[in-house]
């Protein structure tokens, strides 16, 4: 009994969306008003992180919309290299963001502010983007700029009694160029180019290098990381989405990344989306990622102060990871409720297997069969759960 109205509602939705797209030939339009409640949990590598978020988006006029988002992360546990030198950590990150969007004819202007605060890290981002529909609305070009100012600190106290030493600042500038192109009535493709420059304190204060030290019973000692003060990276992503002969879509994407620290990375992602009866949308995805290490990275250096820049941050190590994920979206409240026209609830679960190719698990120190530099390579699995409700009005 419930199905017919849901069919009609989702069917109407598809028609309305199609009409909006048709209307976009004369002028661009803003997306629907919506409110989202979001819960997430990440477990892996000795860490548990829960996240809660609320997002509200509202059109003030037909051509002007505001969006506000609040996100809070709670971290407990600590990653492998923190465990090797510090006590466990409890921390939280609060992120607030506000976005204003204005449409004029075929141009959309977006201005955003993001503020993120942790006990030992503060970050402010301002971004602006401009999106333009062209060539009979077959092409959408987006250019964007973002500037981030970070304050980087270190907690020298405990989780309960923090003593924060502020170590420095970092400034990041991000330049974006995006192109979305309708190729056929079933096929759309996209290209994104992103150049990011950083300057300032870029090291992670919670990670240390290690070097051979015969005077230490372990055979090695730990020292401070020294990073360059600047970094420039370029990422290029190509993606395509195809509507299959039946109602389902397949998406493929490839991203190439390179930076001045010597990291090269390749990312491949494949995604399949399959609706069922206009009530469910099921999605499966597969992602493969591989990178080499930064030029100044080493799992263990020959001796102290071996070179001017030294790092042993696992993010800069050669690594690969595979993600297998699934997502189910259920449409409910087919007749709406109060001000809400329709609603969906979504469960998204991802399993990520991380394998490091030159980062070793030093939890094995002191185990006789492993000499420094011969410990097993580090690997771990992480599970990411997301549960969220979206209400459109």
């Amino acid at each position, binding site marked *: 009994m419930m199905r017919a109205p849901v069919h009609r509602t989702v069917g109407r*939705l*598809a028609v309305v*969306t*199609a009409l909006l*797209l048709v209307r*976009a030939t004369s002028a661009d339009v803003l997306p629907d008003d919506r409110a*989202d409640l*979001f819960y997430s949990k990440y477990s892996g590598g000795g*860490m548990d992180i829960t996240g809660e*978020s609320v997002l509200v988006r509202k059109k003030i006029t037909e051509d002007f919309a505001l969006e506000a*988002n609040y996100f809070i*992360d709670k*971290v407990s546990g*600590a*990653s492998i290299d923190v465990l090797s030198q510090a006590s466990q*950590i409890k921390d939280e*990150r609060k*992120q607030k963001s506000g976005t204003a969007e204005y449409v004029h004819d075929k141009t959309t202007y977006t201005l955003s502010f*993001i*503020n993120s605060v*942790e006990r*030992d890290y503060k970050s*402010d981002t301002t*971004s602006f983007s401009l999106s333009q529909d*062209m*060539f*009979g*609305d*077959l092409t959408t070009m987006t250019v964007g700029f973002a500037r*981030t100012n970070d304050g980087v600190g270190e907690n020298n106290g405990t989780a309960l009694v923090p003593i924060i030493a502020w170590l420095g600042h970092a400034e990041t500038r*991000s330049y974006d160029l995006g192109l979305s192109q309708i190729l*056929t*009535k079933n096929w*759309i493709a*996209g290209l*994104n180019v*992103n150049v990011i420059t950083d300057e300032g304190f870029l090291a992670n*204060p*919670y*990670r240390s290098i290690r070097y051979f030290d015969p005077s230490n019973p372990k055979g090695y000692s730990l020292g401070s990381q020294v990073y360059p003060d600047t970094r420039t990276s370029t*990422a290029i992503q190509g993606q395509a*989405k195809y*509507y299959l002969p039946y*109602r*389902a*879509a397949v998406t493929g994407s490839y*991203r190439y*990344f390179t*930076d001045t620290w010597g*990291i090269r*990375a390749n990312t491949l992602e494949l995604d399949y989306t399959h609706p069922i009866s206009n009530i469910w949308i099921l999605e499966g995805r597969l992602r493969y*990622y591989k*990178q080499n290490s930064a030029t100044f990275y080493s799992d263990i250096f020959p001796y102290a102060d071996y070179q001017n820049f030294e790092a042993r941050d696992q*993010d800069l190590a050669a690594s690969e990871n595979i993600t297998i994920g699934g997502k189910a979206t259920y449409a409910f409240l087919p007749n709406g409720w109060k001000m809400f026209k329709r609603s969906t609830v*979504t469960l998204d679960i*991802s399993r990520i297997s*991380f394998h490091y190719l030159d980062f070793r698990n030093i939890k094995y120190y002191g185990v006789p069969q492993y000499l420094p530099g011969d410990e097993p390579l580090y690997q771990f699995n992480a599970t*990411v759960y*997301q549960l*969220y409700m979206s209400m459109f009005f």
Partner: protein
Amino acid sequence: MSCFRPLLLAGAMLLCAGCSSIQPWVKPYERDRLADPIMAWDRDAISAAYLDHIRETREGSRGATGSAGGGCGCN
């Protein structure tokens, strides 16, 4: 260099003139499939930004994904 600039300008003008005559080969009334929600690049902005944040704090690469976020993720 001085003779190169007018040529560049002329080339750009020709390109723009060519673009203005491009006719859409997929008509607006043929875009119902492209308007289907399953064809959206990202249906859920919070979820996409969250997954990007997880990846960017555990991988050496970043960018060109269309999502933005802040914070360290140092631990």
